[in-house]
């Protein structure tokens, strides 16, 4: 599963920052947990307001399933089984 993740908002909210994670690059059991957690995201739901001014939000899309639209997560929601997405973004994220 190829997962596109973008960090939006924050004090530097006019600078886009994102990464793509192919779960094939993760250990198999971790990949399964990430895929199951991503599958259960609120796909296509309207994004709520940020928790406070200059908070981060994360936009998630599936490269092979554009029909599912986008899921938006608040800062602090990339935890548990979704944590590898956050670490991947921090380590491999690109500006632009």
């Amino acid at each position, binding site marked *: 599963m190829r997962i596109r993740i973008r960090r939006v908002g*924050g*004090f530097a*909210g*006019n*600078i886009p920052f994102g990464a793509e994670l192919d779960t094939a690059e993760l250990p198999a059991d971790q990949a399964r947990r990430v895929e199951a957690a991503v599958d259960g995201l609120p796909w296509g739901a*309207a994004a709520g307001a940020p928790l406070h*001014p200059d908070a981060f939000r994360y936009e998630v899309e599936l490269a092979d399933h554009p029909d599912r639209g986008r899921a938006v997560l608040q800062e602090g929601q990339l935890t548990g089984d979704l944590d590898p997405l956050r670490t991947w973004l921090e380590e491999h994220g690109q500006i632009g």
Partner: protein
Amino acid sequence: MRDHDPMRCILPASLLDKLARSDDAAVRAAALDAMALDNRFRIARAESAARIGGRTAARVTFARIGGQSHRTIYDQQNGSNQSLGTVIRAEGQAAVDDVAINEAYDGLGHTYEYYWATFQRDSVDGQGRSLNGCIHFGQDYPNAFWDGHAMFFGDGDGQFLTRTTAGIDVIGHELTHGVTQYEANLVYSGQSGALNESISDVFGIQVKQRALGLDSETSDWLIGADIVGPALQPALRSMKDPGQANPHDDQPADMDGYVPGGDVHTNSGIPNRAFYLVSSKLGGNAWDAAGPIWYATLRDNRLNPTATFQEFARLTLANAQQAYGQQGAEADAVSAAWDTVKVPL
């Protein structure tokens, strides 16, 4: 009685569920539409209920003299918890050997001083509220924010952003989110969200200009110049040239480039530039006339939480005329600025 009584709706939720599974595509689509609409109402209600602030949020408790800040710096020790950490420097205590502590303390002071000296505003709420700065928030956290109660500073990741306490404009920006919360309480999405962001840049840059003795001409009008890492040199945003602060800056310079659904930090470039234009046209310090016009507008009861750029622009003109005269150079500069950024008055 329950909060949500399905008997009081036009269609009970169970019937909508059934219709959404109908064999008839048109019925199914209509039911799904109704459910989506209902969901949007729910989100809007939840957002509205979760909001803090507004003009009635600051209660007058007793007559204050004002003019004295009450700062406390807390060490979050790289935790991501938003409760206040360990007190490491309180008002009046001497500088310590952690530069982030001293920068946060001084930046909160510069911001307090700007609002007090310029507008006799006693702290973010106008009632002498304590200013809490929480440093070393998170692990290499590339951000800073005001959470409605305190300001949090990340140490930065070194590439994107560096130590966020180093930006006097950043501290002024965040505390101004607090001022806005107690005044117009602009909703943080769409044009009102971009205005909320712009107002933080407008007053953040003035806090820096006043602290460093810069006027409209000598200021570089850059936001975040002291906190950008190598990837975003020389700054995050430019109020003078939106979109030109660094190779990745996506801010539009006028309404022709307005990004529908864009981030609030993107479209804020338009009102940012309008402020710069007024200030540079009038010359001198930004807080001589341009700052007071924007401040009066932020406090104006006619400025709604959902204000558009045009509504805000019209109120800046009304406030410029009221304070400096119908035919004054100030009102002319305000009209010309909004015309340049293509916001019709």
